[in-house]
């Protein structure tokens, strides 16, 4: 096949998963679990193959290609097509998404097999894979779009999948409705972000006359010169979208709740891929942000602050997935800060490596949880028992050795231990911050330290020490179908740094075709050394503190005493949820109630009724004039006559 024709394959990155989901919809339930899982994994795998083909083709001819098969909306000047874009940036995303996605699909075949049984509805197995394929399709739509609107389709599409998968066990959770609530929260929070993105879209169309990427970015500089305010608005509105999707301040609150979804979902959507869409968007819009320094600064600060805030909260969590969730927010903060500083490549690099190691961590956590669940069924713990609470774990190193090793690799990569993937990518970000953004640098370094510390804490609590519950006592290793993807991801986390090794800068050159030539990030020994040391320090400190803690199920955290109120804040997520509840949700509810009853039913609805009642009263009043007495009728006639005469003579 000629390379030109290979590019025409790009729509298939969306079609393949769609085909997969349709097949599963029609046949999945009848043909059983294995069929569903295989079809879905195959669909995702083939997508990866297509992405590889595209990448290969692009390697020889790195210019962007657009495949634009159909018209979509065309009214007046507004012309939007279904147009797929193949360039180095989109292909990186495609590769990462489909690779991690495929691995997670395979993992899910095993995971969901026991999950559906644990939750008591095996019939829902196929549905999971339908949603997963839908997600792959949406995500591919998002990254392969050639215009903002089509990207928005994917953008909201992944939001939908997130909604569906968080609420996958919609009858579970707090009061039976917790999961559904979490799903709704995710969707609506995302919609608030999407509001910003929509406004940005409107503005872009207004100032650029099109939504097509090339056209828009080509004019970015000139428009920024002519309408600096508009560009600022566009970039800030976009940032709102980014903060919704990538869980940044102020819209990060949905992501921890999103852990209500099955663990593979958390890995795929809420760690590896979807949440990075915001980073992708900023990277894609480099041309915008590079001409609006103010916006860049805002983005950078949002990222940095989110990184630190989330890291502190992660310290105070006991749920194995919650820790990882806040860690994800924190790492997304890193990426956002990076793209805010203009270090697009560093951001993308971290995005990819993070996809590997955080995907790995979540999947391993899933393995741990199911190990615990298996232990639960063996043991005699009560129904209230939480298999995700780290305070119930401990000593799993021996029960689940493979899981332990891969978890360790993921944890070290996240902590930034050389030479694992996370070290290189995080170092690049720190390096970028070091050269010119001192305050941010300090924040990020601090975050890096905390990251290592909470990972150390988690590793110790989960795998070391002695089992703290019967379930942990009886936990067992997961099946092959789950562990193989873990191993592959562990390898990727080990070696992912090779993508953009200092001095080689493979990714840098690759992305330069799309993002433009930028000065390759320097490898600063001081920064690298500092971050490595801090990582070691964090892990070591965690080891010291947590191996010596009181080893009892449900015991308080050893940091609680020394840190006091500060730790309570971390534990309670700095009361952000409560704050929003009090500031936005409750007032909205009350306001809606006010509008719905006193205003709508009480005033507006009564106007019509009031007129009718008035009419009735008037009728009753006038009716009294008809009193039945002939003489009064005669009087009326005479009065009428006299009135007529008076009128005629007096006028």
């Amino acid at each position, binding site marked *: 096949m000629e390379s030109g024709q290979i590019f025409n394959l790009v729509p298939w990155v969306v079609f393949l998963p769609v085909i997969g989901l349709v097949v599963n919809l029609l046949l999945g339930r009848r043909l059983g679990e294995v069929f569903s899982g295989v079809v879905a994994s195959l669909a995702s795998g083939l997508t990866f193959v297509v992405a590889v083909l595209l990448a290969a083709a692009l390697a020889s001819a790195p210019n962007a290609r657009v495949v634009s098969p159909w018209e979509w909306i065309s009214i007046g000047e*507004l012309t939007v097509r279904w147009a797929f874009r193949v360039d180095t940036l989109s292909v990186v995303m495609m590769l990462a998404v489909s690779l991690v996605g495929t691995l997670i699909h395979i993992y899910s075949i095993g995971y969901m097999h026991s999950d559906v049984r644990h939750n008591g509805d095996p019939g829902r197995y196929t549905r999971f894979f339908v949603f997963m394929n839908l997600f792959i399709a949406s995500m591919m739509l998002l990254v392969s779009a050639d215009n903002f609107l089509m990207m928005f*389709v994917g953008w909201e599409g992944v939001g939908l999948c997130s909604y569906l998968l968080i609420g996958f066990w919609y009858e579970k959770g707090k009061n*039976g409705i917790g999961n559904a*609530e979490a799903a709704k929260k995710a969707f*609506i929070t995302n919609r608030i972000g999407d*509001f910003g993105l929509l406004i940005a879209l*409107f503005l872009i169309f207004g100032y650029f006359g099109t939504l097509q990427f090339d056209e828009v970015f080509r004019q970015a500089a000139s428009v920024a010169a002519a309408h600096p305010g508009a560009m600022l608005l566009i970039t800030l509105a976009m940032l709102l979208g980014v903060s919704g999707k990538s869980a940044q301040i102020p819209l990060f609150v949905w992501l921890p709740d999103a852990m209500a979804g099955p663990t593979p979902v958390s890995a795929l959507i809420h760690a590896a891929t979807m949440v990075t869409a915001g980073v992708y968007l900023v990277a894609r819009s480099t041309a915008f942000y590079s001409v609006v320094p103010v916006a860049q600064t805002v983005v950078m600060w949002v990222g940095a602050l989110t990184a630190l805030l989330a890291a502190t909260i992660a310290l105070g969590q006991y749920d194995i997935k919650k820790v990882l969730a806040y860690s994800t927010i924190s790492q997304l903060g890193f990426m956002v800060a990076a793209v805010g500083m203009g270090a697009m490549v560093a951001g993308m690099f971290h995005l990819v490596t993070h996809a590997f190691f955080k995907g790995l961590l979540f999947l391993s956590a899933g393995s741990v949880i199911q190990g615990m669940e298996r232990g639960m069924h063996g043991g005699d713990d009560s129904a209230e028992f939480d298999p995700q609470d780290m305070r119930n774990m401990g000593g799993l190193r021996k029960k689940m050795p493979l899981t332990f090793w891969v978890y360790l690799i993921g944890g070290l990569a996240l902590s930034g231990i050389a030479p694992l993937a996370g070290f290189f990518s995080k170092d690049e970000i720190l390096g970028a911050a070091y050269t010119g953004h001192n305050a941010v640098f300090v924040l990020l370094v601090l975050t890096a330290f905390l990251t290592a510390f909470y990972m150390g804490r988690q590793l110790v609590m989960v795998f070391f020490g002695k089992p703290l519950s019967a379930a942990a006592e009886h936990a067992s290793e997961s099946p092959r179908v789950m562990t193989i993807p873990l191993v592959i991801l562990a390898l990727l986390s080990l070696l992912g740094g090779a993508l953009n090794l200092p001095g080689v800068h493979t990714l840098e050159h690759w992305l330069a075709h799309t993002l433009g030539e930028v000065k390759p990030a320097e490898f600063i020994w001081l920064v690298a050394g500092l971050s490595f040391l801090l990582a070691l320090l964090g892990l070591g400190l965690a080891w010291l503190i947590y191996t010596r803690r009181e080893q009892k199920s449900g015991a308080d955290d050893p940091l609680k005493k020394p840190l006091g109120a500060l730790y309570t804040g971390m534990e309670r997520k700095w009361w952000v949820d409560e704050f929003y509840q009090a500031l936005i949700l409750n007032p909205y509810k009350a306001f809606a109630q006010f*509008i719905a009853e006193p205003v709508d039913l009480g005033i507006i609805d009564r106007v019509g009724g009031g007129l009718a009642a008035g009419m009735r009263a008037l009728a009753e009043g006038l009716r009294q004039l008809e009193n039945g007495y002939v003489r009064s009728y005669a009087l009326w006639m005479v009065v009428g006559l006299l009135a007529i005469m008076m009128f005629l003579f007096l006028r």
Partner: protein
Amino acid sequence: MNSAINPLLLVTFFPLVGVLLILLLGSTGKNTARWIALLTSLVTFALSLWLLMQFDSTKGGIQMEINLPWLTLGGNTVGFHLGVDGISILMVLLTALLTPIAILSTWKAVEERVSGFMSFFLLLETGMMGVFLSLDMVLFYIFWEFTLVPMYFLIGLWGSQRRVYAAVKFVLYTMAGSLLMLAGILWVGLTYGGFDLTKLTDSAIPFTAQLWLFGAFGLAFAIKVPMWPLHSWLPDAHTEAPTAGSVILAGVLLKMGAYGFLRFNLPLFPQATLTLAPWMAGLAVIGILYGAIVAFRQKDVKRLVAYSSISHLGFVVLGTFALTAQGVQGAILQMVNHGLSTGALFLIVGMLYERRHTRLMADFGGLWRVTPLLGSLTLVTVLSSVGLPGLNGFVGEFTILMGAFHSTILASPWFAVVATLGVILAAVYLLHMFQQVFLGPVRHPENEKLADLSPREVILLAPLLLLAFWIGLYPAPFFRLMSPAVEQLLALIQTVVQTAH
């Protein structure tokens, strides 16, 4: 196009054949009436497709015109003047599509006086077709008012508990507006020598008169749409009407108001339109938010959907008065979209009601597990209504908002920005509804054994949802159909803008 009979006549009056047949044969049994009605409406639908095939979408003007003199009255001619253009053809298709679906939806729900129900329904179809196809103002008014009668009986005879109140309220509100419209029609007809719409667009009505007339026509349409604060008939009418009635009410009857703006107010009173557009848009935006906010606090699922209509129709009005190509085309498309998605929602509410005989959301919960197919199809419908990209609602809302945002006549992006908040609020109340009914655990033992969708019910929803996907993914044919007509309309407005400067 040399067919012997004008297709418009067939589309409009074919339902009457069904009425006649029902009156002749209706006494033989319930099913006879049902089948006659269904087949008649299906044939009408086929006829409307035939109409579509004959329609030349490249032309902007009126097509397949038929103009017969009907009567002369003091020097004015009232003509039997029908015609179709890019704006009305979509409405005709929507009507022809929704009627058989609505009829099929009553298969189990209506057991009493079936032949009466079916006759009224077919009469209603004729009335609605007439409204969309009339090009003579008096004829339009006749059809417009005539639709009240069958709808009144449909609500009053086959509705739920407060049906009488709702039916009377519906008629009174609608007539309050339309009577003033009649005054407007008479005034225009007398002052400008005729009721023929196609001849009136050239007449330069003085500005002050335009304002008054805009008000007289606009009030009728605004009540029908309904625009805030004239909406309070709608929740009652929708809630109390039988399912099929609600489907048609939401799907088609409300569109008559929005269509009226496009057909009368814009071309006949362009200067007034220009002046009042920001006010109308302002009311529309209030309606969008207001409907969404009130919907959120409803306990009755049907009322919730009813209030959602207020919100959705707000988008239509906003797009209309944006007076940009995107706005107006989006508005027309959104009329179709709302017909599909809200029609489907009402069908679903009806299905729920048939199963449990309650519409309170608190009586449901966890139904997705019990009735997975119903749950899934509801989800798609809800998403279409929420405006999820890839489904129909998004295309309409996006183009409307885009049009409003850049409208030089509204001259402020704030209308669109505030309206965009409605997109968030839509998610709030619709997901709230979905969660209350379908998510969570099954709270009531009565719900444990509910039956999932029957094939008939799937057939009801399937065409609507397929169209939802079609419009969401490939709306181009729809836009192509209407764009010449819209361009013509906007060109007219544009000339007024230019002369004003």
